[in-house]
C-alpha cells in the first residue's frame, strides 16, 4: 500500500501544481485592482478646486524594450516619467498619475496580450506607447472594443488616425503623411526640380515617399522624379543605391530610411560625400539619437528633419525641459523623450479639463485640447485625434563644443501646415 | 603489468560484463577469444577507460586506473588499437602518426623511421588519406599509431578482422616482433588459429563471463570448450 501512496503523492503534487497554475492570480486578483486612493489635500485651493478625484489615474505603457528601438523607447519612457513627476507635484484634482510598463518586443501579438493585461487586470485608464506600427494597429482595434483611450507616441503610420482611426485612439507624433507633407513644403521652396526618391522597403518608407511626392507635385508641378528605389530593411551595404542615385544626377535626394537603416545610410552618405554634390534630405535625419551615435562621421550639410531638437527652439520652456531631463538622466532627450513628455502633460491636462475620471468625458476634453509644450503650442485635432505639432527641418553642422553634429538653419514647419486637411482624412475614412 | 578484477560493465541499461577477471604479465601476449558479441570489445574498452566498469577494478602498473580519464591512461603507457581500426579518415597516414607522437628523444623510442622499418608498406603511402587506405594498410596504421605513443602495453581489438589471409600472416609476424621489443599485449580475437600461434595464454569469453583460462595447449586439449564457445 505504501508504494501506491508514494506514487500518488507525486501525482497529487503535480496535480496541485497544475491547479495552482490555472488559479494563481486568477483567484489572487479576481478583479482589477483599483488604483490607490488619492492623497488627502494639503490645503484647500478655494472654489476653483471643487472637483476632487477619489483615486489616482493609472496609465499603462506598452513599448519595445528589447532590441534596437530601445534607444527611443527608453527616452519616451523617461520623458513620460519626468512629466509625471511634474504633474504629481501639482496633482490633477488631487490625484496623481501612476504608470506601469510592459515589453512587447516589437511583436504585435505580445503587444495585444499586454494591452489586455493592462486593461483587464491592471485596470488602466489610458494606454500609451507602441513603437511598432503593426502593434499600434492591432491594439487600436482592441481598445476600440474596450473603449480605453490609447495614445500612440512612436509608431508613425498614418493609418492610425487615417483609415483605422476611431474615437479611442490618439496619435502624438507627426505621422508619415505629415512628415511627407512637411518635407515637400520645405523642399518646394528650394529652386530644384530633379528629385531622387529612396527609402526602406516597408510600409513606412513607401508612405512617406508617396505623400511627399504627391504634395511636391501639387506645390511644384515642374518637379521631376529621376529615380525612385527602395532597399530591403536591414540593408548592409548602401553603395549600389548611392551609385544609382549619382548616376541619375538628381538635384535633391529624399530618403525615408527605417529605424534600422538610419545610421548605416547616413554613414554611407557621409562616406560618399553625397551631401556635397546635391541636396540630401533624410527623414528623422537630424535627430539627436542618430547624430550622437555617428559622432564626427555624420555628413556635414545634410538636410534632415526631426519633431524635436533639444537646442531648438531656444526658448525658456524648452531650456527648462532640457535642463530637467539632463539633470535627471544625464543625457539630452531625443524626439521620443519629447513625445513621452508631452503625452503625459496632454493626458493630465485633459483630465484637468474634464474634471472627471470618466473615459468619455476624458476623450471629450482631449479632443481639441491645446497645451504649451517646450516647442510651443500643440493641439489635439478634434476630428481625427492627430496631434498638430510642429516639425523641424535643418542642416547638419559641426559644433565646436560637441563631439557630434547638430542641426542648424532650423526651419519650423507649423503643425497646421504639415497636417493633411480634414477633407483628405474624411475621404480616406469614406465619410 | 595489467590486472582486471571482477569488472562489471554496462552500455546504458544493458549489462554486458559480469565479473570478468584477467591478467597480463610483462612480456606476455594474452589472447581473449570468443564469438561475436561475447563481450571482447567491451573488455578492451573497459580497460582503456572508454566504458569504465561500474564495479570491479582495473590495475595497471600497480595503479588503480578504474576511474582515470582515457587520455591519462594512454599517457601511462597503454596503447589502444580499436576493433574497426578507427583511422582518422580525413588525415593523411603521416598526419595520423604525427598527432599520436609523444615520443621524446629517449633511446628506443618509436618514431616514424622505426615505424617504417616495422611496417615498410606504410612508407610509400605517407600522403594518402586514412580513409582511402586498404584494410591491411589501415590495420598497420592503427598499430603504428598506437606505437607512436611509446606504450609498453598494447590492447589489440580484433586486428585480423576482415583481412586477407596473407595480410593476417604478415600482421601476426609483426605483432610477434613487438613482443621482442618488450611490449605486453592483450589481444581480442575471433580468428582462433592465427592468434593461438602467438599467444602465451588464453581466456575464453562468452556472454560476458570468463569460461576458460589457461595455456594454448590446455585449450587445444579441451575440445568441449572449443566446441561450445568457439565454434571450431
Amino acid at each position, binding site marked *: 500500500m505504501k508504494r501506491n501512496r508514494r506514487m500518488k503523492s507525486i501525482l497529487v503534487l503535480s496535480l496541485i501544481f497544475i491547479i495552482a497554475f*490555472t488559479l494563481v492570480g486568477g483567484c489572487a486578483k479576481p478583479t482589477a485592482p483599483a488604483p490607490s486612493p488619492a492623497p488627502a489635500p494639503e490645503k484647500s485651493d478655494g472654489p476653483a478646486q471643487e472637483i476632487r478625484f477619489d483615486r489616482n489615474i493609472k496609465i499603462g505603457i506598452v513599448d519595445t524594450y528589447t532590441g534596437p528601438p530601445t534607444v527611443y523607447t527608453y527616452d519616451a519612457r523617461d520623458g513620460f516619467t519626468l512629466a509625471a513627476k511634474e504633474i504629481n507635484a501639482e496633482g490633477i484634482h488631487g490625484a496623481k498619475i501612476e504608470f506601469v510598463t510592459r515589453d512587447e518586443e516589437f511583436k504585435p501579438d505580445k503587444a495585444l496580450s499586454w494591452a489586455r493585461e493592462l486593461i483587464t487586470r491592471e485596470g488602466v485608464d489610458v494606454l500609451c506607447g507602441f513603437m511598432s506600427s503593426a502593434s499600434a494597429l492591432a491594439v487600436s482595434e*482592441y481598445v476600440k472594443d474596450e473603449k480605453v483611450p490609447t495614445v500612440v507616441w512612436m509608431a508613425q503610420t498614418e493609418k492610425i488616425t487615417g483609415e483605422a482611426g476611431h474615437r479611442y485612439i490618439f496619435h502624438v507624433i507627426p505621422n508619415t503623411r505629415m512628415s511627407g507633407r512637411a518635407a515637400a513644403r520645405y523642399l518646394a521652396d528650394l529652386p530644384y526640380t530633379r528629385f531622387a526618391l529612396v527609402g526602406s522597403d516597408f510600409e513606412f518608407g513607401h508612405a512617406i515617399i508617396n505623400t511627399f511626392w504627391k504634395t511636391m507635385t501639387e506645390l511644384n508641378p515642374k518637379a521631376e522624379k529621376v529615380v525612385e528605389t527602395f532597399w530591403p530593411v536591414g540593408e548592409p551595404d548602401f553603395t549600389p543605391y548611392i551609385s544609382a542615385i549619382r548616376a541619375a544626377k538628381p538635384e535633391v535626394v529624399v530618403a525615408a530610411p527605417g529605424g534600422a537603416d538610419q545610421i548605416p545610410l547616413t554613414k554611407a552618405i557621409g562616406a560618399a560625400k553625397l551631401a556635397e554634390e546635391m541636396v540630401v534630405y533624410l527623414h528623422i535625419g537630424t535627430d539627436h539619437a542618430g547624430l550622437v551615435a555617428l559622432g564626427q562621421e555624420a555628413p556635414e550639410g545634410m538636410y534632415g528633419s526631426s519633431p524635436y531638437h533639444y537646442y531648438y527652439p531656444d526658448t525658456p520652456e524648452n531650456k527648462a525641459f532640457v535642463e530637467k531631463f539632463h539633470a535627471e538622466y544625464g543625457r539630452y532627450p531625443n524626439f521620443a523623450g519629447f513625445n513621452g513628455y508631452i503625452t503625459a502633460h496632454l493626458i493630465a491636462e485633459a483630465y484637468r479639463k474634464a474634471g472627471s475620471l470618466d473615459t468619455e468625458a476624458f476623450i471629450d476634453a482631449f479632443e481639441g485640447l491645446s497645451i504649451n509644450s517646450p516647442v510651443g503650442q500643440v493641439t489635439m485635432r478634434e476630428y481625427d485625434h492627430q496631434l498638430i505639432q510642429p516639425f523641424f527641418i535643418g542642416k547638419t553642422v559641426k559644433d565646436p563644443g560637441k563631439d557630434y553634429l547638430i542641426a542648424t538653419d532650423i526651419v519650423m514647419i507649423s503643425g497646421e501646415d504639415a497636417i493633411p486637411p480634414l477633407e483628405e482624412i474624411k475621404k480616406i475614412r469614406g465619410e | 603489468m595489467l590486472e582486471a578484477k571482477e569488472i562489471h560493465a554496462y552500455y546504458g541499461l544493458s549489462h554486458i560484463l559480469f565479473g570478468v577477471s584477467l591478467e597480463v604479465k610483462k612480456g606476455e601476449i594474452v589472447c581473449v577469444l570468443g564469438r561475436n558479441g561475447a563481450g571482447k570489445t567491451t573488455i578492451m574498452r573497459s580497460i582503456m577507460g572508454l566504458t569504465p566498469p561500474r564495479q570491479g577494478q582495473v590495475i595497471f602498473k600497480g595503479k588503480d586506473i578504474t576511474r582515470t580519464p582515457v587520455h591519462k591512461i594512454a599517457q601511462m603507457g597503454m596503447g589502444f588499437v580499436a576493433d574497426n581500426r578507427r583511422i582518422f579518415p580525413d588525415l593523411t597516414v603521416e598526419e595520423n602518426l604525427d598527432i599520436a607522437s609523444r615520443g621524446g628523444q629517449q633511446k628506443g623510442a618509436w618514431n616514424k623511421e622505426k615505424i617504417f622499418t616495422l611496417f615498410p608498406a606504410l612508407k610509400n603511402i605517407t600522403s594518402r588519406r586514412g580513409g582511402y587506405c586498404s584494410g591491411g594498410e589501415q590495420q598497420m596504421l592503427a598499430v603504428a599509431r598506437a606505437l607512436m605513443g611509446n606504450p609498453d602495453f598494447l590492447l589489440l581489438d580484433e586486428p585480423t578482422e576482415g583481412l586477407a589471409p596473407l595480410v593476417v600472416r604478415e600482421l601476426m609476424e609483426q605483432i610477434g616482433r613487438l613482443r621482442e621489443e618488450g611490449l605486453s599485449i592483450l589481444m581480442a580475437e575471433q580468428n582462433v588459429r592465427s592468434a593461438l600461434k602467438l599467444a602465451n595464454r588464453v581466456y575464453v569469453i562468452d556472454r560476458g563471463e570468463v569460461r576458460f583460462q589457461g595455456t594454448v595447449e590446455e585449450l587445444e586439449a579441451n575440445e568441449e570448450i572449443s566446441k561450445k564457445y568457439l565454434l571450431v
Partner: protein
Amino acid sequence: MLNVFSKLTKGQFFSFKLLIIGIVVLILLFAPSYLSRYYLYLVTLILVTVLFATSLNIPLGYGGLLVLHQATFYGVGAYAFAIFLKQGTLPILPASLIAPLIAAAFACFIGWICVRLRGLYFSFLTLAMGQLVWAIIYRWYNFTGGDDGIHAIPVPDFLRSGSSVFYTTLIVVLISLLLIYIIVKSPYGLTLQAVRDNPQRCESVGINIRNHRLIAFVMGGFFAGVAGVLFVLLERSVAPPMLFWTKSVEVLIMVLLGGMFTFLGPAFGAVVVIGMMTFFGIFTEYWLLFLGSIKILLLLFLPQGVLGYIEEMMAKSAKKIEKGEERGYAQG
C-alpha cells in the same frame, strides 16, 4: 519488466491520470465564472498554445523528426483564416475548416520535400522553407498586409465575448487533443514510434518510412493550423512575427520543458512557459534574463522535461517495487 508492472497497476495508474485530467477539465469548464477577464484570456491563450505545442509533438516526439519551423503552419493557418474573413470570401465555419487544411497542404508540400532527408538536414530544410514562407508573407503587401499584418478581422459578434471565445477554444482544443491521442495510440501511431526508434528494422519489414513521417508532419501542420485559427478568434489580428523562426524555437522549448516523450508534456510546457513569460514580464524589465536562466537550468537538469521527469520517477519507483525493494519505504 515494465510490462509486468504495468499489467499489475495499469488500471490504477490509468484511472489516476484520467482523474487528474478530469479534474483539470472540470476546473476549466467553470473558468469563466471565477476567473477575471484577463485570466480567462490568458487561459484561452494557453489553450491555443497547448494545441500548438502538442501539434509539434506529433512529428517531433512521436515521429522523431526534428522540425525546426512549426510556426510556419500556425502562421499559415492563421493568415488563411484571417484573409478569408477579411476579404469575406468564405463564411466563418467553412473558413475555419479550410484554413487548417491549407496549413496541412503547406505541410504536405514542405514535408514531401523534407522527409527525403535525414536528421539535421531535414531540420535545416524545414527552417529554410519556413523562413521562405515568412519572407513572402512579410513582403506581399497586397495579399497579406506585409509587415503591418492584418487587423480588425471581422469575427461574428457571438464569438467576441471572452467566455464564448474561451468555450470555443476549449472545445476545439479538447477535441483536437483527443484526436491526436487517438492517432498516436492507433496502429499508425505505434508504427510511427517504431519508425522513430528503429528506422532500419522498420524498413526491412517493409514499412514505408517516408510516408509515415510525411503523414505525421502533415498532421502536425494541420493541428498547428487549427491553433492558428483559434489564435485569430482570440486576437482578431495577425502579423508576420507569428511565423518567424524565433516563434518556432519558443514552442520547441515548451515541448522540451514539458517532456517530448509524454503525451501531455508539451501542454504542460506551454502552461509553464506562458505562465513564466507573463509573470516575469509583469514584475521585471529584465524578464529575458530570468526566463533565459530558468530555461537553461530546467533543460540542463531535467533534460527529459518536467512531465517526463515525473513519469521517470514513477517508472523508477515501479521498478523498485517490482524488484521487491520497497522495504526501505516500509521501514521509513
